[in-house]
């Protein structure tokens, strides 16, 4: 079963930048049945303005191949709700997409303000490590690979985030299967 998520710029950059066990994190996610949707403003920030970085090229390639889907924001249902938050266009658009793309499970953001704004709109919000744990718990990513991904992305997080996810992984160990990796 496909897990559809909307990624904002931070997690997308991290997923396209970090590699574990010979494979980029973004490819681990895609091979695990994760459908990644992004807003055009996020594509602009990561794959166009970020084209000078290897991860920007990776993002651009995955978008061109159709592995990462860029979807326009059809309406701005929460424009007034979000107006006073000090968010960028990419974060606002990612939140809006969650309310209009069929089957979206969560907004994936590592940004506190975007996370809080999404939760207050009754949306599901996960950090990138949460997405990794969810995929492991579904059995589409092995615990070993999930743990390796968490360790790889650890430098970009504050204390407590990765430790929390590693505990969740151990809790979900009963569900381990033959997922990717």
């Amino acid at each position, binding site marked *: 079963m496909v897990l559809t998520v909307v990624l*904002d*710029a*931070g997690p997308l*950059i*991290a997923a396209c930048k970090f590699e574990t066990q010979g494979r980029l994190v973004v490819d681990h996610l895609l091979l695990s049945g994760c459908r990644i949707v992004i807003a055009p403003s996020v594509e602009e*920030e*990561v794959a166009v*303005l*970020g084209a*000078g*970085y290897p*991860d*920007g090229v990776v993002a651009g390639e995955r978008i061109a191949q159709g592995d990462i889907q860029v979807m326009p924001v059809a309406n701005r249902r929460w424009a007034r709700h979000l107006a006073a*938050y*000090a*968010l*960028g*266009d*990419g*974060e606002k658009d990612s939140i809006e997409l969650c309310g209009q793309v069929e089957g979206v499970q969560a907004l994936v953001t*590592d*940004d*506190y*303000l*975007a*996370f*809080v704004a999404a939760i207050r709109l009754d949306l599901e919000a996960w*950090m990138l490590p949460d997405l990794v744990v969810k995929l492991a718990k579904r059995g589409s990513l092995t615990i070993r690979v999930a743990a390796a991904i968490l360790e790889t992305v650890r*430098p*970009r*997080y*504050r*204390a*407590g*985030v990765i430790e929390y996810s590693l505990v969740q992984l151990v809790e979900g160990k009963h569900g381990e299967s033959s997922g990717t990796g």
Partner: protein
Amino acid sequence: MVKVVVPVKEEILRAAERRKAVGMDEGIAQFLAELIDLGFEYRLQQLYQRFEDGKISLEYFANELGLGVRDLYAALERRGLATSNIGARPSETDNGQQITPI
């Protein structure tokens, strides 16, 4: 190196003129470049504090600094700073782990 025209405060201009008057012509460009660098670092530090406090998002931070998100991400990484602001700050952890000061 990019060359741009930048309006500067009178006192900075005077400082540059004083340098020129004492024969330090060659140092003026470096002096001004250092001032710009210091200003950038100060602004980055100010905004990072607001980002750390959860008052502004990463993209808003980038916009305020005049950078793209990816360039800001790289700038934070170069300084050893977390690019996510969820979780405990390094100074709040028990193990005393410190971030590289800006």
